[in-house]
């Protein structure tokens, strides 16, 4: 049934790991971020209390989403913001295109928004002849390379400074071989300044939309959302509908958790509050569903919508660190992506719930206490029940379940199995047919099982 054209996670991960020193570097880099997160979390004695509050506020918001969204729309509209509703990615993209086209604009800037990645806005707009420039440094780097981001907070974390230098040399004409981060950042700054100045329209994401005020908050470390929004005549902010929180005071919980969980910073460098358009400016908000209400209707998975996109689960995930974001073949990678994406396209993403050892570290770092690893387990059941599983695996499992449910068959199979392994070791010690044996020895099969020993000795 798995007839996807994209490489599945295991295949892509195996390709990633082939370069072992680079894998080690990737793992160490993200582990360093995880350690910074630990340090920041452990500096707050009330950390676990904050996580509880954040989780409860989000649970409450999800249970009262209709009311809060209506309240937000009313307040935002009263503030002079135009509110648009998009049922899916196509509507989201079309709404944005219509605003751009109505104003005769052909160059726009965009700060980081995973929603626009999810909706594939960039290729859509580019097809209409519009120049879209991602202004987050990491996003600009991967955009120039024609790659998707590999991480939702650190989009170019899979690249080394040498890679960036080559990309900038090719596209921004920096000196060949100059890997100095200061030099490269300066080049990006000049390049992006020019884009900010000539752009009449800026797109941003939304980290939090506040129902009681109709305002929203955008967090960046580079100030690029502000540069774009302040320089442009039109500001479009795009949000998944789960970004809503009831009150402004709740920001005191979320902003403390977000940056600490993401990078270990006490707060993001810019937490910008947008309330209403400045004089002469147009401000739009596009509120997007795109599968979210379907996820909200799945009792086992609805609380995945509590996610505030901090990526702490990426950084702690031992599988993510060793397989890279691109192996997840989706806009949002990592453990959270593996519980969000099967909802969007179960067939294409049937491999993702299996790209985990279920170690549980993701759930422990999650600032809004999403039970990520339990949801991975539950998605596995759904994916199999829906038939998105290889036939060989299905029959293997059925055979195993039969043997293990029948004690006498189990005992005789075990005895024969161990005898075969001892007598004909080449049958299991085979790198082609036995993935275990590729890089690991098989356990030594004993003559007696424990049960046999027990019968003889007790």
């Amino acid at each position: 049934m798995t007839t996807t054209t994209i490489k599945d996670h295991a295949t892509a991960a195996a390709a990633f790991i082939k370069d072992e020193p680079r894998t080690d570097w990737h793992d160490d880099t993200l582990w360093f971020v995880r350690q910074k997160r630990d340090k920041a979390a452990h500096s707050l004695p009330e950390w676990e209390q904050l996580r509880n509050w954040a989780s409860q506020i989000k649970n409450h918001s999800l249970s009262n989403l209709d009311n809060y969204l209506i309240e937000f729309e009313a307040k935002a509209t009263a503030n002079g913001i135009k509110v648009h509703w998009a049922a899916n990615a196509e509507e989201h993209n079309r709404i944005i295109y219509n605003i751009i086209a109505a104003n005769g604009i052909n160059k726009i800037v965009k700060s980081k928004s995973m929603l626009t990645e999810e909706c594939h806005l960039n290729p859509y707009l580019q097809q209409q002849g519009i120049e879209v420039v991602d202004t987050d440094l990491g996003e600009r780097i991967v955009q120039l390379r024609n790659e998707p981001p590999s991480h939702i907070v650190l989009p170019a974390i899979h690249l080394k400074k040498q890679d960036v230098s080559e990309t900038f040399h090719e596209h921004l004409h920096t000196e060949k071989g100059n890997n100095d981060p200061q030099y490269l950042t300066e080049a990006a700054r000049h390049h992006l300044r020019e884009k900010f100045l000539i752009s009449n329209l800026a797109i941003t994401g939304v980290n939090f939309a506040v129902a009681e005020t109709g305002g929203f908050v955008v967090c960046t470390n580079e100030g690029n959302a502000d540069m774009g929004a302040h320089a442009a005549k039109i500001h479009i902010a795009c949000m998944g509908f789960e970004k809503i929180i009831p009150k402004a005071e709740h920001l005191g919980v979320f902003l403390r958790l977000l940056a600490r969980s993401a990078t270990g910073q006490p707060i993001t460098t810019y937490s910008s509050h947008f309330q209403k358009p400045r004089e002469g400016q147009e401000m739009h908000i596009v509120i997007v569903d795109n599968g979210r209400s379907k996820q909200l209707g799945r009792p086992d998975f609805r609380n995945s919508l509590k996610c505030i996109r901090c990526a702490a689960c990426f950084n702690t995930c031992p599988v993510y660190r060793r397989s890279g974001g691109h192996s997840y073949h989706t806009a949002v990678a990592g453990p959270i992506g593996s519980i969000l994406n099967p909802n969007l396209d179960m067939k294409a993403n049937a491999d993702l719930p299996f790209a985990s050892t279920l170690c549980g570290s993701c759930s422990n770092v999650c600032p809004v206490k999403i039970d990520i690893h339990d949801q991975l387990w539950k998605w596995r059941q759904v994916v199999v029940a829906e038939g998105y599983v290889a036939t060989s695996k299905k029959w293997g499992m059925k055979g195993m379940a039969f043997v293990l449910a029948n004690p006498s068959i189990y005992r005789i199979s075990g005895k024969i199995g161990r005898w075969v392994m001892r007598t004909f070791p080449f049958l299991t010690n085979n790198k082609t047919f036995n993935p275990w044996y590729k890089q690991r020895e098989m356990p030594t099969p004993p003559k007696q099982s424990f049960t046999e020993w027990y019968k003889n000795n007790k």
Partner: protein
Amino acid sequence: MRVGLFVPCYIDQFYPQVGIATLQLLEKLGCEVGFPLNQTCCGQPMANSGFAAISKGCDKNFIQNFAGFDYIVGPSGSCVLHLKEHLHESNLSPTATPINKKVFELTEFLVDILKIDALPANFPHKVGLHVSCHGQRGLGLSSMTELVAPSFSKPEKLLSLVKGLDLQMPVRRDECCGFGGTFCVFEEAVSVKMGKDRVEEHAHNDVEFITGVDVSCLMHLEGILKRNNSKIKTLHIAEILNSNWE
């Protein structure tokens, strides 16, 4: 106190010495231990692969074998966690204790139920502890580096009672080894890389043995150690706690 000894299928078949050590240890500590001969598997391999729906036969067989015991103890955090979370009895009388409330992983049974605070065991070796995820994060056998909470460890507490044992912890105290059930074959490359990284940290500490509460993790690490001709051996914690009693 009647204790039912649960020896998970792959331990039964490949690591009988772990079953023997667990049995001897419990008996030496005064438990009346029974071993139901028709036990097989907890059902986890199927359930974690998405086939929980077809592992009912294992549930039924487990319940038939272990119904009469006060406690059920097994030397595997992962299998015990599966039973606690996913074993459901259909015809349970309202007054009876559900079987999944009676299942314990060995070290939690020793610390929480038997309240062991002395052991006459001797094991004069340098030992690295691998903290298995399902035991730690699932059963709460020890504190977790992600959480802001007081630190404790049931396995470490027990190992600290063993005479001569020099316990070494890896830098990443509770990173997963990459076994992950069928993950170890379906995601072979990542699984092995994770295991190699664990082994390397322990080797850096110059340990003679790596121990832990889960044979599955140890089997995976052992496979990597042996392939690379390492001198480091793996031992389940029961084998160490049962060593050379005075």
